[in-house]
């Protein structure tokens, strides 16, 4: 196996047994980035020297026998996670030269475990989008076919893992932004329970929905990263105090027949959803059969408020965004338009030149929905619908252990296909938004391919703080699905 194909799990093993050094591993990824990055566009920043420096430091630690959970493992970070001394743009012109003065909690945790930060990945501006076409810097291409989008908003993070530019990456998920690109790029992505992972140092889009999570080559790697990044943090008052189980342990003790007796719920509203692609349906039904063969009991469940999910989300998220993004006023950090003599004009010119159109659109929707006279009709109503959606899930989990569904209604679409029609783009989020609205965890696991050879994943959603069931079911599924092709061919 080539170095760049290694999972975190196998790389750790080889590093521990001194078969390879972190320097060799990091160099292998950097050389792939040098060769193929122009075609994929996964990164906004790659700091080769810093990465190799960290790798050398890791090798010294290994030589001294000090090996932590991720010593020497190259990991990429979505460019919305603050990294001390490395610019963090959020895919926006407004933060073009922003260099954080501190590390986000997840970044400190990765560094404490010895990880090598190989670069910062491309995203839809401020994580607003489902295709990574809204970045102010570049369009990321799907490594499986470069005419197609990688999904989004963590499209750079998913493409970087699929293109073998790193062992794994971190993304963020506000409405599907980890799970959907993972599905489109043929990798594993998990959105943890709201509160499982500290959001300190994650640049806010919609604070009640945002969550950081791993994007990896396999389910066990997701468990390894989740072990590192989870836990309460005094710097994020919304991070939960719930104990963090050892996510890898349960997988290492996994035995044949381990899924026997688990109950999967199939939401009847999802399969009757409009616009579900027959190829996605086929992959989903195949996954359902496989899980049944593995002993999982299938039950039809109902999530009766599914038809309101997209509408409620596209009120709540823009409302929170309009408030969160008010801070980019050209005063304390980021871009400032220096042509204006007047303060209000300076604000306006700074924001209008600094933000792209999708961000401006969402700020306007949010401002509108929160303005006097509309608040109750829009925001108030949407938060009540959110309560109903959450209750749908609580009821469903009385009869099942996880919910099985497609990730996206169709495989990746062509670049440019939906850019003029934001509403159609929003509707593609139908299966992923609910997990954010209800605060529950969701995982996307590769499950098949379209006739054009584009990957298609399946989603499992679980009870709050029960990522373990998703990892176990995902692991069992992954061991048995027998996909024909693990990596896209870039050469």
């Amino acid at each position, binding site marked *: 196996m080539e170095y760049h194909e290694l999972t975190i799990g196998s790389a750790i093993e080889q590093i521990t047994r001194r078969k390879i050094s972190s320097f060799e591993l990091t160099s292998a990824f950097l050389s792939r980035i040098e060769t193929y990055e122009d075609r994929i566009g996964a990164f906004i920043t790659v700091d080769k020297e810093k990465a190799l420096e960290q790798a050398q430091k890791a090798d010294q630690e290994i030589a001294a026998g000090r090996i932590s959970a991720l010593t020497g493992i190259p990991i990429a970070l979505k460019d919305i996670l603050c990294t001390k001394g490395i610019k963090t743009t959020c895919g926006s012109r407004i933060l073009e030269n922003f260099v954080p003065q501190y590390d986000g909690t997840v970044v400190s945790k990765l560094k404490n475990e010895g990880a090598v930060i190989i670069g910062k990945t491309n995203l839809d501006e401020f994580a607003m989008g489902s295709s990574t076409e809204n970045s102010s810097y570049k369009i990321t291409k799907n490594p499986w076919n470069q005419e197609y989008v990688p999904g989004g908003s963590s499209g750079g993070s998913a493409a970087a893992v699929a293109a073998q530019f790193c062992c794994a990456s971190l993304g963020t998920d506000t409405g599907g932004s980890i799970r959907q690109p993972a599905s489109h790029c043929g990798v594993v992505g998990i959105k943890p329970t709201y509160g499982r992972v500290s959001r300190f140092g994650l640049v806010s889009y919609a604070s009640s929905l945002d969550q950081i999570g791993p994007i990896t080559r396999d389910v066990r790697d997701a468990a390894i990263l989740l072990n590192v990044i989870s836990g309460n943090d005094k710097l994020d008052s919304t991070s939960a105090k719930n104990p963090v189980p050892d996510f890898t342990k349960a997988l290492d003790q996994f035995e044949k027949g381990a899924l026997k007796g688990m109950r999967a719920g199939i939401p009847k509203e999802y399969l009757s959803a409009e616009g579900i692609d027959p190829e996605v349906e086929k992959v989903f039904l195949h996954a359902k059969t496989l899980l049944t063969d593995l002993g999982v009991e299938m039950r039809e469940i109902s999530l009766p408020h599914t038809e309101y999910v997209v*509408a409620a989300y596209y009120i709540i998220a823009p409302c929170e965004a309009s408030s969160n993004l008010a801070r980019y006023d050209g005063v304390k950090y980021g871009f400032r338009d*220096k042509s204006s003599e007047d303060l209000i004009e300076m604000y306006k010119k700074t924001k209008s030149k600094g933000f792209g159109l999708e961000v401006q659109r969402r700020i306007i929707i949010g401002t509108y929905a929160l303005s006097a006279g509309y608040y109750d009709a829009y925001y108030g109503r949407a938060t009540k*619908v959110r309560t109903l959606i959450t209750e749908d899930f609580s009821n469903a989990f009385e009869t099942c252990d996880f919910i099985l569904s497609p990730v996206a209604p169709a495989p990746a679409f062509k670049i440019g296909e939906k850019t003029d029609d*934001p509403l159609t783009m929003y509707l593609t989020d139908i299966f992923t938004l609910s997990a954010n609205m209800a605060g529950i965890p969701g995982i996307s696991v590769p499950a098949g391919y379209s006739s054009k050879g584009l990957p298609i994943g399946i989603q499992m959603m679980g009870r709050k703080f029960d990522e373990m069931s998703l990892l176990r079911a995902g692991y069992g599924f992954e061991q048995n699905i027998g996909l024909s092709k693990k990596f896209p061919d870039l050469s």
Partner: protein
Amino acid sequence: MKISKSEVEKIAHLARLEIEDSQKEKMVEQLGNILQYIDKLKDANIDGVRLSSGAAIMNNVLREDVVEASPGPCVTLANAPDRDDDFYVVPRVVK
């Protein structure tokens, strides 16, 4: 619900945005379509349903009020687009 051009201009002003003339028509149309779709929420029966502010833990998060060192102006102002010593410089506010 449709939204008019003048409403969009008013909201943009409140949000301190300035939409380019060339983008305005398209923006008004796209926002109108989105708002029309969102009107779907009016069909949901929300009688007696409580508001939810999100999935966050519902109990209060308290801690001791302990004094910690501040990073200081060098760090705080490191990304300032315009500064004078330890102050942010902005266009004149009072005229």
